[in-house]
């Protein structure tokens, strides 16, 4: 085997390997929607997060603007503390409303941000003041039944 042909094959091999990794990252994975650039973190307190998981998307008007990076339970306020990592291209007003929503009836849960009208913008480490808990199916059904029951009592 000539030295040069061997080098050629090894070169092709390495290019193919790197190409495969790139295809995996860009075509199969979501690296292109994942801005490798800067991000900042926001904190939100939720009474109930339902089935929200780490890495769940944060969307505003349906556009992914960030991800959930941490979920903890606070012993001071006895509620869930959710840390969001938001792409620094997107900044939101101080009175932005964060709610935990469900994609479809049984789909994955995500955080929806509805921008407010405040002049002051949220900065890294700020707390979201207005939050809305997840809708838990059992509670919904429970409330529905309770309402029905109280309705029928009226008669």
């Amino acid at each position, binding site marked *: 085997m000539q030295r040069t042909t061997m080098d050629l094959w090894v070169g092709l091999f390495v290019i193919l390997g*790197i190409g495969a*990794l790139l295809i995996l990252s860009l075509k199969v994975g979501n690296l292109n929607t*994942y801005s490798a650039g800067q991000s900042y973190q926001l904190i939100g307190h939720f009474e109930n997060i339902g089935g929200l998981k780490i890495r769940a998307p944060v969307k505003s008007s349906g556009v992914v603007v960030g991800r959930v990076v941490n979920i903890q339970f606070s012993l001071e306020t006895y509620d869930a503390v959710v840390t969001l990592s938001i792409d620094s291209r997107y900044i939101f007003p101080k009175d932005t409303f964060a709610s935990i929503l469900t994609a479809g009836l049984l789909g994955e849960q995500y955080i929806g941000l509805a921008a407010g009208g405040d002049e002051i913008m949220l900065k890294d480490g700020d707390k979201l003041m207005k939050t809305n808990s997840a809708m838990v199916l059992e509670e919904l059904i429970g409330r529905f039944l309770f309402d029905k029951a109280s309705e029928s009592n009226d008669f």
Partner: protein
Amino acid sequence: MPKRIISIIQGIGHRAIEGTWQVGLASRFFILVLLKSTTSLRRFGLVMRELYFVGVLSLIIILVSGLFVGMVLGLQGYETLQKFGSETAVGTLVALSLVRELGPVVAALLFASRAGSAITAEIGLMKATEQLAAMGMMAVDPVARVVAPRFWAGVISMPFLAAMFSVMGVFGGYLVTVVFIGVDEGSFWSQMQSNVDFRQDIMNGFIKSCFFGVAVTTIAVFEGYDAKPTAEGVSIATTRTVVTSALVILGLDFILTAFMFRGIS
């Protein structure tokens, strides 16, 4: 009768001691190879040559197997998913199975039987024909000159081969479900892309294949270097490389998976 039971227990004990020794010796050899890697890193031509034998010559089996594994995954996944009316999720199924598990694991198993056994046989034969001893007599360290380049070639090739396996698999799945069966192409890719995460899935699969590469090549070079210098010894060592590699890959995969995917969906 008690005598037989005692001898069975003795047999187990003997094998346990033997196995522990082997693990210890292999680990020590691994450290030794790392310490003596400066030559191969300085003279990268040595590694290049081995990259050809270890990587390029494994390409065919990896690419063809990847294609077929992906096609089967696509077919089976479609059969099951269409019962629930979610056949567009077949892209996600194929990609996640390949990137997280099948890519690294099956590629490593194939790599062990194709390249690992070849490395063991080559080093074992060099030992049997006194080539390693001759090298030592010429004041050239065989571990640095023969073992380390093969080790690094294996470690470098493995992640590349695993990635190529996964890409071929995804392509195979695409071929079967989109081209032949007629699943909507747009939802195939978009479902896949929204569910396969770069860091959680692709990076973890990549890290797995790096671990497997180190494990398989360490076993291969150790078995070769440790082989009895006879024709029979070399053949035993080659078999042991394939069997031990397979067990180590599967065991290591479980441990790595437990660490990587714990606590997330």
